[in-house]
């Protein structure tokens, strides 16, 4: 059950994508998301999808992992899809049929609605895949290093970049620990006959309190202990700390940089001169 939630889990293989500079990957993610939102038509989205597919292949992540990441947003996708499908107004005709295919009271299925829904689903799936690709191929430490490095300009206005990066890395670090802890507590309550995996929806919802409260207590305790351990070691973040792994920009990064710039440019051009407009 919980082990199926794979968002935020590093998948350790050596690949082209794994070796990229985390800063670049972060920037690329932002560029990619921007491109997905700028895309107003299928060709632009297709280009994004193609590039993502290329990245997926280069990353050597098994397809099962990607599908698993998608399962997390299945409900969201279905929900938006149904709502849009039933209520999207529009009289544009895409194929040889009436614009409004079905109408009953306030429900209205239109050709435009179907196209728009398909577009929306594609967009959501692409968003999910690209974010999970980042976490699959980048260790949390590399991610925060990259994040910190990218935020350097904010240091000039005395923004506590390092502290923020630290908070982020701790949060990422504790996801699997808390996941384990949740599993443990769930097991313990199941052994006491709690209806977490059996019984009606209301019963299950009630059973959740028996997991959430111990989990909260545990996380407070963990936080306290971590804070104390850091204080004991006289932890001070900031300027004088050196890094074990220096980030380096290599030829791989250059290729991806060019690809990313090209993608953004292509999508912007297509936005003004659409080929297959919605």
């Amino acid at each position: 059950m919980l082990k199926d939630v794979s968002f935020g889990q590093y998948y350790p293989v050596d690949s082209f994508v794994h070796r990229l500079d985390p800063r670049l990957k972060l920037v690329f993610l932002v560029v990619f998301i921007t491109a997905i939102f700028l895309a107003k038509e299928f060709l632009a989205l297709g280009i994004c999808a193609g590039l993502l597919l290329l990245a997926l292949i280069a990353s050597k992540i098994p397809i099962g992992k990607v599908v698993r990441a998608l399962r997390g947003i299945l409900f969201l996708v279905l929900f938006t899809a149904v709502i849009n499908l039933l209520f999207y107004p529009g009289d544009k005709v895409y194929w040889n049929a009436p614009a409004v295919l079905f109408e009953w009271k306030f429900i209205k299925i239109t050709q435009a609605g179907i196209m728009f829904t398909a577009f929306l689903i594609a967009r959501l799936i692409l968003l999910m895949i690209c974010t999970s690709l980042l976490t699959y191929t980048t260790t949390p430490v590399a991610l925060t290093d990259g994040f910190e490095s990218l935020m350097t300009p904010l240091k000039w206005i005395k923004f506590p970049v390092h502290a923020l990066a630290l908070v982020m890395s701790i949060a990422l670090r504790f996801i699997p620990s808390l996941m384990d802890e949740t599993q443990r507590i769930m097991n313990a309550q199941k052994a006491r006959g709690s209806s977490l995996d059996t019984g009606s929806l209301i019963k299950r919802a009630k059973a959740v309190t028996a997991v959430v409260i111990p989990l909260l207590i545990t996380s407070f305790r963990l936080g306290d202990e971590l804070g104390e351990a850091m204080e004991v070691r006289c932890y001070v973040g900031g300027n004088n700390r050196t890094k074990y792994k220096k980030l380096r920009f290599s030829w791989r990064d250059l290729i991806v940089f060019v690809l990313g710039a090209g993608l953004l440019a292509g999508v912007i051009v297509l936005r003004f001169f659409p080929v297959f407009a919605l």
Partner: protein
Amino acid sequence: MRIVVEHLTHIYNEKSPFAKKALDDVSLTIEEGEFFGIIGHTGSGKSTFLQYINGLMRLPSSKKRRKKKNDRTVFQVGEYDLTRKKTDYFGLRRSVGMVFQYPESQLFAETVFDDVAFGYKNFAEKKPTKEEIEKNVKEAIEIVGLDYERIKNSSPLDLSGGQKRRVAIAGVIVTRPEILVLDEPAAGLDPLGKQEIMELLHTLHQSWCKTVVVVSHDMDEIAENCTRVAVFSEGKVKYLLPPRELFKKDEELKALGLDIPLTAKLCLELKKQGVEIDCDFTTEDFVEKVLRLKGGKRC
């Protein structure tokens, strides 16, 4: 209820770079009425095995298993056959009480009473009356050695470590399971607390729970209490012996990274001095044998 296990294999994260064989062709039978000990190094598969007994870890569906050639897995807990597709896991969990490591982390209710009553209410076949709940909770809290009247309305978070653990155990045994499974029940307690927990297990074994299965790192506890011991190592059962025979294998156990009880160490030391003692490694028997050697005289 007997527990019969044959050819049980479990692999975590199958088909991924993290794949790890936690149980490898494990076969063992635990008879009704036993005080069964399980020892082994960290990561030897003990905890995974325990979770199977309680149905928290499930065998893959029979379809999947049939695909793998000559699958001969047998897993029975009393009348529950866990290899079958439709096992009554709820019923199984009612008959098998499970106390996890550091069970105090599962306490969640506002009062001790509510927390102990949680399991009882969940497992009751029909809605229990207030009196029934009160009676059972009271008995459970008292058998673990706590003062019911004083403690019932306090928050579980305000108790001491040892008390918390007792409340957690009470919350499990309140349903009077036939088999009680404990994963290091005494971990992290002071010596006195440890001793009290082991005494509690004895009381339970003689009164409420016919069979007790306990995982422990403390060899003295194992030697004092258990009828038989299974030694897990790298997912396999290396030895399955009564403590009396097991702890003679000090060299083999050391090779597995395991300790021997103090009495066994003393026997070894005496052997070096040329005095051979054949005892079952409980303190009582050890003292008796030593005294007999001295001709019954105390020094």
